[in-house]
């Protein structure tokens, strides 16, 4: 269905090709997952399928890309719209119309689908993706997860043969992501649709994948094969695969079910080392870095937060979890002084963040927003670092040094807009962290991050906590939460519904439990590192 024949692609101005001599066949009805590190060229590969690369990106493409027998050489993306549905990384930027329902119909209108067929297909997409409550809403007023679902629905209605998705679940909470993936597999199974998707959080996708395409980056040849094979050596792998590789399971498990079947001996072996769950004796003794009392906020008739009482302690990493739209971002925005609460009080280091001046505020609290690019507006990475140093009166080079720790080797003359999502996050983090605020807030920091970047993020956050910072992160990424958090707060509909040591909260929830915990239940192992050290201590 999709054919790449000796495709090489070089962005204009780039020294080395992003893709070099790529030959790839994706047969009809296959779900093919593209994996690779941040910035390795996954998006370029996906965008080449319907000709957005090179028609809209510039650059030089050699070789042939064809879909359903139509080459992108003589078909522009619009002439491929009936065969390829493309959903980009940022769904909000792809919306053309104003209302959800119009958005769903847009592609069909362009294709000239008859009116009654359009009505039917819009209804189908509404049912398939659970958009019923949203159909009258403005596309700009949706949460990230809702936008993602609308964007997928909008290409589905045109019933393309091929669906190309660039990280479709990265903004979604675990349940919503599961829902989207389930509908994708249903499309593959029931309709024989061909799906090519890039994904960073492989733990959810791998069980559904027919094949995996590993993009190693730097123009190195692709590795293509069944998931078990590619995962054996892939630098990006979900925790369950890492666990399998660590223990040496054969065949390599891809699902919790497969892994549990092989895990009995491992469980028995490391059971005596099972982590204790006292939650840390000094937890309550740590000083409070920030607290909110009886906090409430509403947007017109919509309630964002209902009387939230929370305290964030120094030296503690707290994860905020919960559905899309459960109030996590609202809480972070209030604590960081970007939004004033309707009721209740906020204290950050003894001050009301909303009343602090800009220069004062960043010494109290730092927030990395959902879209880290918002924080960046310099001409280059170096420029960004220098202006951060100036804004907080730090000696020159402080931010650059922080950046080097987070993202080693980022070219200082690169424009922030030319960085990958992960690199942008790293830079934004460095900028926020430079003045060393006692309270650091992160809103969805793992969007678009690969496993190595996440590892670095985890180390960094742990280091910060050990150095006495209070770290709060809102995330859907249960694996990250399990590795980094001391404490987990679960929110639903603007209320705190769970608050306690991360081990307890996370392990006991079927939605939030990480893969390692699921495999090794009932013992409360959370992370690979715990298992690794336990294995080292108990020779077989």
């Amino acid at each position: 269905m999709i054919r790449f024949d000796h495709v090489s692609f070089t962005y204009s101005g780039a020294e080395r090709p992003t893709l070099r001599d790529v030959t790839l066949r994706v047969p009809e009805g296959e779900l093919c997952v593209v994996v690779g590190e941040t910035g390795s060229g996954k998006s370029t590969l996906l965008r080449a399928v319907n000709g957005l690369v090179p028609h809209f990106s510039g650059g030089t493409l050699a070789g042939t890309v064809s879909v359903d027998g139509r080459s992108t050489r003589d078909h522009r993306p619009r002439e491929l719209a009936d065969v390829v549905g493309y959903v980009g990384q940022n769904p909000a930027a792809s919306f053309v119309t104003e209302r959800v329902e119009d958005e769903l119909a847009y592609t069909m209108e362009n294709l000239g689908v008859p009116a009654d067929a359009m009505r039917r297909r819009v209804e189908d997409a509404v049912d398939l993706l659970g958009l019923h409550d949203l159909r009258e809403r403005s596309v700009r007023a949706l949460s990230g997860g809702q936008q993602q679902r609308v964007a997928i629905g909008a290409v589905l209605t045109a019933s393309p043969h091929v669906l190309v998705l660039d990280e479709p679940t990265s903004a979604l909470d675990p349940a919503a992501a599961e829902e989207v993936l389930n509908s994708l597999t249903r499309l593959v199974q029931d309709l024989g649709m061909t799906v090519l998707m890039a994904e960073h959080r492989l733990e959810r996708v791998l069980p559904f994948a027919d094949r995996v395409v590993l993009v190693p980056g730097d123009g190195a040849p692709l590795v293509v094969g069944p998931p078990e094979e590619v995962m054996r050596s892939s630098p990006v792998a979900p925790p369950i695969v890492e666990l399998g590789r660590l223990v040496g399971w054969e065949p390599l498990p891809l699902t919790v079910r497969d892994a549990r079947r092989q895990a009995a001996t491992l469980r028995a072996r490391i059971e005596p080392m099972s982590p204790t769950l006292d939650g840390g004796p000094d937890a309550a003794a740590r000083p409070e870095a920030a607290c909110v009392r009886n906090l409430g906020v509403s947007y017109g008739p919509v309630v964002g937060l209902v009387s939230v009482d929370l305290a964030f302690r120094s030296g503690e990493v707290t994860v905020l979890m919960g559905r899309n739209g459960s109030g996590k971002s609202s809480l972070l925005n209030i604590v960081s002084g970007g939004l004033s609460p309707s009721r209740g009080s906020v204290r950050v280091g003894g001050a009301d963040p909303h009343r602090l001046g800009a220069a004062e505020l960043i010494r109290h609290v730092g927030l990395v927003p959902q879209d880290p690019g918002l924080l960046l507006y310099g001409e280059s990475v170096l420029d960004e670092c220098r202006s951060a140093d100036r804004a907080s009166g730090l000696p020159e080079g402080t931010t650059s040094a922080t950046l080097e720790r987070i993202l080693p080797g980022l070219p200082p003359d690169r424009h922030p807009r030319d960085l990958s999502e992960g690199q942008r996050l790293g830079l934004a983090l460095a900028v926020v962290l430079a003045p060393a605020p006692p309270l650091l807030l992160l809103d969805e920091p793992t969007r678009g991050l690969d496993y190595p970047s996440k590892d670095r993020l985890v180390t960094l956050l742990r280091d910060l906590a050990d150095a006495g910072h209070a770290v709060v992160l809102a995330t859907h990424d249960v694996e990250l939460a399990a590795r980094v958090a001391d404490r987990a707060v679960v929110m639903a509909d603007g209320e705190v519904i769970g608050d306690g040591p991360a081990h307890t909260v996370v392990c006991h929830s079927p939605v939030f439990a990480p893969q390692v915990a699921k495999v090794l239940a009932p013992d409360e192992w959370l992370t690979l590192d715990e298992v690794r050290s336990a294995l080292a201590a108990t020779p077989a």
Partner: protein
Amino acid sequence: MTSSARRAVHPLAWWAWAACLAVTAMQSGNPNPLVLLLVGGVCCFVVASCRGNAPWSRSLAFFLRVGLVVIAVRVGIEVLFGQRGVPGHVLFTLPRVPLPAWAVAVSIGGPVTLESILTAFVAGLQIAVILVCFGAANSLASPYRLLRCLPAVLYEAGVAVTVALSFTPELVESIAAVRRARRLRGIPTSGVRGMRGVAVPVLEGALDRSLQLATSMDARGYGRRNEAASVARRLATAATLLGLLLAAVGVYGVIDSGSLFGLGLPILAVAVVLCSVGLAVGGRRTTRSRYRPDRWGGQEWLIVGSGLVALGSMVLAHALDVAGVTVSFFPLAVPALPVVAVVGILFAALPAFVVPAPRRGVASARADVGTVAA
């Protein structure tokens, strides 16, 4: 959605209504300020009761502000460069700036009379009210739905229009986002330096998104057509555009009978023929279809009708030469109210009572959440 009460009004109906009111305001060379204020008031009233909660619904405020600027500029110019030598009540005298002999037609400074300022104010007010009519149409009708009413041939220009439409609301949103982000970075957001720091990333971001939008439109099949000879298509587009241009010239000629040597009507006729040919040829080869096209029903007729009544009453008042239709401030006097026109213009407020406002509430609140989350 199926009940007619909640059906969105056809965007062209609002535009026609607003156009009627704008032409009403334009009817006289020396308009009555009270009539102008009434037209502006009717616009604001109808917008206040019929607008929805979309980003463009708040654009009237912007047009009101621009209108005030227009009035201020018009009066300011009058004070500085106004006609001198006309007798009247002198308010104050500006020092006269001596100009060389060749600039004798221009004068700077001198005595400023109440009459000249009033005249300038009314002239400014007229432009401001026309702007308000335009703003009302903008607030009431979804520009996206209006775009859908465009004939297929003109739809080609739609990329530019769609991008432009999304540009303004996104600009407003991203200004807020950038200001928040700068606060997070500890950089002041006010003052000249703050403004410059905000402007660059905002424009950059907006341009970026415009590009992404164009990409997305293309990826989703925008601008596809069946295998038609491109020469015919180009001819159709050219004919339509030329026709529209001639139509504009022709309308000007019809309104201002002194210009164009009375060729207004013939030009208009040619324009209509060109447009019809272009639309017919171009429309045949489009592959587009419409999802839930806007329907033209009773409430649309009512809206347009109320606008026409206002316009008609003004034309009638002119024809009958009712006192107060044209007002001169030489000599100074309180203008009379032309009752016929006033009643007609008040009739244009009818949509405010008949057309139900679109549902508000949840959607608008979520819009705020969206900007906050950004």
